């Protein structure tokens, strides 16, 4: 998300949410999905994505395996673990709170 990633942790939430929607996906697919779903509003830069994926995997929220893609290419697929699902719920909740907070602040003006 480049310049947009001031809201730390948002990327983690996007990845977790994407994987919960797609079941299991490789990095490139995650980029495309986020871009598509947000109507090109959010672009995840690969420079941020892979470090994030590896960090989240080390944290145990996602697991990965090498598989062959639908286009017959070897790629690394990520999927949510049960802890990841819980973490996603937590992050989603805090995100909602932030949005609510910012929203009411904007409305106030």
């Amino acid at each position, binding site marked *: 998300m480049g310049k947009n990633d001031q809201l730390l942790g948002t990327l983690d939430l996007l990845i977790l949410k994407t994987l919960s929607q797609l079941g299991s996906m490789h990095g490139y697919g995650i980029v495309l999905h986020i871009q598509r779903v947000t109507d090109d509003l959010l672009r995840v830069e690969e*420079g941020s994505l892979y470090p994030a994926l590896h960090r989240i995997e080390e944290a145990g929220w996602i697991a990965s395996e090498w598989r062959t893609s639908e286009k017959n290419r070897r790629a690394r697929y990520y999927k949510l673990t049960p802890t990841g699902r819980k973490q996603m719920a937590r992050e989603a909740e805090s995100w909602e709170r932030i949005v609510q907070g910012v929203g009411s602040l904007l409305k106030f003006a």
Partner: protein
Amino acid sequence: MSLFSRITSLFRSRKIDQDLEDELRSHLEMRAEDNASAGMSLRESHLNARRRFGNTALIQENARGTHIFVWLESVVQDIRYGLRTLRRSPVFTIVAIVTMVLSIGATTAIFTLVESILLRPLPYPHANQLVTIATFMPRQNAEITASPEFLAWRERSSTLEGAAAYDVENFNFSGAGEPDRLLGVYTTADFFSVLGIAPQLGRTFSTEEDQPGAGHVVVLSHRLWQDRFGMAGDVVGKKIMLEGEPYVIVGVMPENFRFPDATQQPDIMVPLALPHFSPSEKTPMAIVSVVGRMKPGISLAKAGADLTNVSKQLVASYTAGAQTFFSGSSVRVRSLQTELVGSVQRGLLVVLVAVGFVLLIGCLNVASLQLARAVQRGPEVGVRSALGAGKARLVRQLLTENLVLSFCGGCGGLAVAFLVVKLVRVAKLHALPSVADIHVDARVLTLTLLVTIICGFFFGLAPALWALRSAPADALAGSTRTVAGTRHRSLRNLMVVLELSVALVLLAGAGLLVHSFVRLMSVDSGFNLHGVLTARINLLQSSYPRPEQKFAFIDQLTERLRAIPGVESVAAGSSLPLMGWTGGMSVNFEGRPAPSVGLAPMSSTVDVDTQYFRTLQIPLLVGRNFTDADNASAPNVALVNQTFARKYFPDESAVGKRFHSPIPNSPSVTIVGVVGDEHHLGPEKAAESEIYFPMRQNKVYQDGLYFAVRTRDLSGAAATFRNAVKELDRNQPVFDIISMEEHLSESLATRRLNMLLLGSFALLALTLAAVGTFGVLSYSVAQRSHEIGIRMALGSGRRRVIQLIMREAILLSFSGAALGLASALVLTRFMSSLLYNTHAADPLTMLLVSILLIVVGAVAGFLPAHRASKVDPMIALRAE
């Protein structure tokens, strides 16, 4: 990340690298494929994919950054890189490391002293319960504890677990090797149990042995056992001769036993054997020192109140005269630790603060050097950050480099500290309490490590933060000249001003100590101490039982000594100037009303021979000197000093006046002359009223003798003195052979140590500050060579250029001096107690050190100024 996965990742690292590369490649290929299907050319689509992807190397680095192995690897890399950079600029590295070594070394060494002496508990179990107890007598203005009081405290106190009395004396020792005069101590039997120390060999003496007239038993120090008995295991039961009488060795103390006295460590311990005291009978008293152990949880104040109460009850049982004598006295209870280190505490703390300042200057200096380097390294940092190094990563690298530097400094500093501590131990400085076992321990090592790390961060932080601020584009675009901002220069100037001001504070402190010391050394002690050798002899009661025999010995010895070439005169006396208090008496003047019992004025007394005043060159002001005719059969006479004459006979001549002691049936004494004052108690103490008696007239002859020899050959005098005594009586020990000058200098040892330490730190600080000033100005000249070139091209002469830089140097020095002077005036107040006859804000000292600082600052600026004047305008301008 769990520890387990971190550790397993250490082993998996190669596979992780491979995995990551595969993953990124597959991502790129998928992107390229999509681009191609969208109609891009193959080359174009690959390029586009790469561009979107950004810096693959960086992504790899970042993704790998989550693994500990990679982290470790990058630390090692940073250290290696740091070492390489340091090697590339050897001058900077050497200056920085030497600065660190000296400042960390000095800090560690001084902290070792402070820790060993002030912080470490004394070497006794539950040492915090140990106290010294003494009775303060306001009329004598001294602490004098009489044995009956001690006995009362020990018996009746409710706050003490136990108490022991002792009295340190010199003993003539023989029976094992050469006869010698050894320091020994009379102690009560419970001395060892109160301190909580058991003997290494044998036993200590029993309560039965600690009675008047009981057996002669002795406990030896470990040192004496080693020196005289070769640590033989069968020493217990053997006999030695003390004061010509046989004593049975019953025990040996362990090696780590320390006698609770700040200055002396006795080798011999024998029973004090205090007589039982009853106020109704006339029983002899002894003056003793008392060490006690309070019951756990008792405060000093509570113990003091309890013991004062006990003393009051005791004094109430005394006769009226004795009650007057003890009136107003109070019991002082102090912790043993405070008692032992109190005299050096203030000095050590001042020195510790001083060394902290040196450390501060050292850090500022290295920080300022680093800052200059940071500017030069601007392009390097710019390139690195343009290549994708994160700011945090860059800061980490710079800090690592600094830590490498400070660790080199720390190791060197530790070596310096070990060396200094070794020197201190070898030198056995008189100024330091002998109970302290000075060595570097774990606490000191921890502190050094902490100091090292803090220094590394402290002087690395400024340049690192500076690197953070700079934008890579500026760094790459600009030449080094434009990079140096004014803000940056003012930061460096501020550092130098701080350094100079701290140096001035230290100079002021050292200057005040030097000033005091010079004042003390030039105090007119009232006699000529140059070329005088002194020695002490205690004639054995067994060999010289009668006074005539003693006088015969003195006569023979002085005769032999006078015959030696170079010897001008020889004197004997019960004491000598500067040697301390010897005796005292109350005087009742005839023809004046006798003061009530116990309130007669006190004077010091010294027994001297006829040559005393001539040898020491103490002037006779009025009347006559003693002659050989002033002997036991002649009328009693005395000389008094000027203070005595002024005090008691302010308006008339003291000569011819008569006095006697208040003790009934004392003989009447006629004053036959007045002599000049001499400082008997030491140069710092003013002369007291003093009475001199002719030695041969004093019926109660004290056997402790001092000899003074005025000679032109001081260096060989000690040996000739020893030989002369040996030829007369080969069993008679001589001790404390020392010249007056050496004696004076030893009595000033604490002052000298403080002065030397503070002085050397002040010089170190001044040097470091000068190096700092030099560095800043050199750098400033380098930065401004372009500007200087233009000035010269426009007709500015070399003199003007030198003036330009010198003005900067002098401005810095003046600012430093002003700031330093203000701080010094606040801080030196805390060292007033270390000063003699010198005000803490002594204007002369302050003026001199300020001038010194400004001169040194100007000198440090001259070299850069000279270099600036050599700038070739053509070259400076062409460099654009």
